[in-house]
């Protein structure tokens, strides 16, 4: 099922507003809505589900305008951040709930068979008669997914599905969700504030800030070509240096960087900590080491440029320079943007 959002607006007295978002999601695609808290990503998801009504704009499921269809008739599967399993029902009863209340009558045998099938799909066959309070968080989230899938939704929507789980469980579930998605081919939209999760799982990432889409594309596209300083910062650790842009070059402490297409004036260059090399000869920006932090697989160096701007970069564990040593920062793949 193709989903299309056409200039959707939602005003709130608080900060969670959405200011005119248009988005196309292809049938069978797995799309991540990525953004910091308050960027409106959950609001968008809830509007697609029908749990929130748009103030303006339209939402299409295929060619059908779904904007005014109430949530119970919209045919979406929704997985909540904190599972929202019915605590007084067993795992099996939770999964069967949607089929039992459905207008389409199913025989008890058909329901039982479908519950079994879904339990197998989410690999929880032995837990049918447990209550949600008796299983782990990761298991609960899988039950929530099975429950959402039970009514054959046209679209699967997940709100921070792994937000409440441990890092390890999270990674496993992520890979597992991708596998399920590939098996079922259901159009899936999920919300996350964790860039690693979005990049790991999604076909396409939609990055939101302050209720607007700032960039959308494949994980590769957004990683290699962040549209602006916000995206660059949000996707991962980034250093930022003030620069002056003159004639297609960005000047920082007497070093020039390519700055094609950036208007003259004050600007900024951003780069990843992994894209810096420490040199003792005269190449790059002059700096002095302030501190060295040890990590299992690398050493993180905190340095200060001559103009007093802080830079962090990663080096091999064999790095032997220490606090107070002077040298030069050789920056690869810098990204130059106009000043914010």
């Amino acid at each position, binding site marked *: 099922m193709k989903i299309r959002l056409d200039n959707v607006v939602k005003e709130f007295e608080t900060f969670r507003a959405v200011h005119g978002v248009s988005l196309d999601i292809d049938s069978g695609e797995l799309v991540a809505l990525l953004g910091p808290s308050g960027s409106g990503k959950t609001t968008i998801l809830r509007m697609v589900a029908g749990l929130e009504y748009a103030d303006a704009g339209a939402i299409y499921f295929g060619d059908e305008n779904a904007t005014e269809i109430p949530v119970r008739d919209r045919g979406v599967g*929704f997985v909540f951040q904190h599972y929202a399993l019915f605590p*007084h029902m067993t795992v099996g009863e939770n999964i069967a709930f*949607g089929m039992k209340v459905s207008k389409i009558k199913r025989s008890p045998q058909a329901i039982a068979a479908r519950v079994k099938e879904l339990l197998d799909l989410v690999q929880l066959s032995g837990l049918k008669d447990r209550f949600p309070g008796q299983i782990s968080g990761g298991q609960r989230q899988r039950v929530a997914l099975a429950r959402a899938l039970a009514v054959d939704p046209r679209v699967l929507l997940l709100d921070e599905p792994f937000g409440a789980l441990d890092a390890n469980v999270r990674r496993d579930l992520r890979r597992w969700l991708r596998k399920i998605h590939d098996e079922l081919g259901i159009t899936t939209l999920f919300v996350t504030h964790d860039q690693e999760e979005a990049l790991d799982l999604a076909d396409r990432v939609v990055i939101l800030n302050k209720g607007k889409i700032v960039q959308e594309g494949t994980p590769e596209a957004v990683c290699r070509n962040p549209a602006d300083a916000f995206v660059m910062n949000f996707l991962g650790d980034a250093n930022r240096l003030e620069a002056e842009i003159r004639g297609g070059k960005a000047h920082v402490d007497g070093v020039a960087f390519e700055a094609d297409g950036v208007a003259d004036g004050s600007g900024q260059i951003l780069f990843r900590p992994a894209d810096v090399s420490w040199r003792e000869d005269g190449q790059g920006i002059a700096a002095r080491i302030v501190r060295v932090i040890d990590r299992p697989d690398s050493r993180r160096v905190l340095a200060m440029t001559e103009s007093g701007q802080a830079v962090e970069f990663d080096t091999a564990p064999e790095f032997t320079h220490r606090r107070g040593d002077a040298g030069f920062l050789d920056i690869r793949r810098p990204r130059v943007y106009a000043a914010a």
Partner: protein
Amino acid sequence: MRLRRRVLPGLPLALGITLVYVAIIVVLPLAALVFKAASLGPEDYWRIISSDRAVASYRVTVTCALAATAFNLVFGLALAWVLVRYRFPGRRLVDALVDLPFALPTAVAGIALTTLFAANGWFGEPLSLVGIKVAYTPLGIMVAMSFTSIPFIVRTVQPVLEELDPALEEAGQTLGASDLSIFVTVILPLLTPALLAGVSLSFARSLGEFGAIIFIAGNQPFSTEITALLAFIRLEEYDYPASAAIASVMLLTAFVMLAITNLMQARALRYTVRG
């Protein structure tokens, strides 16, 4: 042997004070009651508690208490629902008014209700036109019982309703359930333990209510005489053992009822048992 250290100090002292308090305030009077009733021989005891007048009073008390509790179950739940789910002007005032029956001396409530429901009262007059008599009938007893015990249901259900995760209802909606089936299959089962607690308190209070009822009931033996009043009448007659005997029946009823509701609550909460 090393003394076990506790994180929270003062357990022996706190436990001691609590037990002494329970013994003096709760157990001692009950023991005195049982002791007094036991001073009768078994035959006398049985004759007193199974006399026609006593049995009639049990019937009046229990049926009225059941009806009042059923009424409170519905309207207490509705009241709690409205107070939790809706924001309207005067909500805080209504919320505060719920506790009024607790704060008001029950005799005052009884007199006020009698005035309202008497044949020439504000409510009684229009009601008598359609042939309904409230004051001096069992209906009046029910009104007084409902009035004094409705806060129990509201105050036990309200916090549970407030804590109910709205995502549960949203989950029900996304799964295609109607509002009614969400209420019946999701909300009501989750409220059941609180409702049972409220019902048992409300029922117990209705069984034991005295002050509010005697003004409105008419107190005719065999039709509008409640058990508590009968015990009081025996007391007035200086027939302490008979009074204690009748009171012991009420005590036993209260115990049995509390035991039953506790069992029902445990059953309703079985999903919280960790496996």
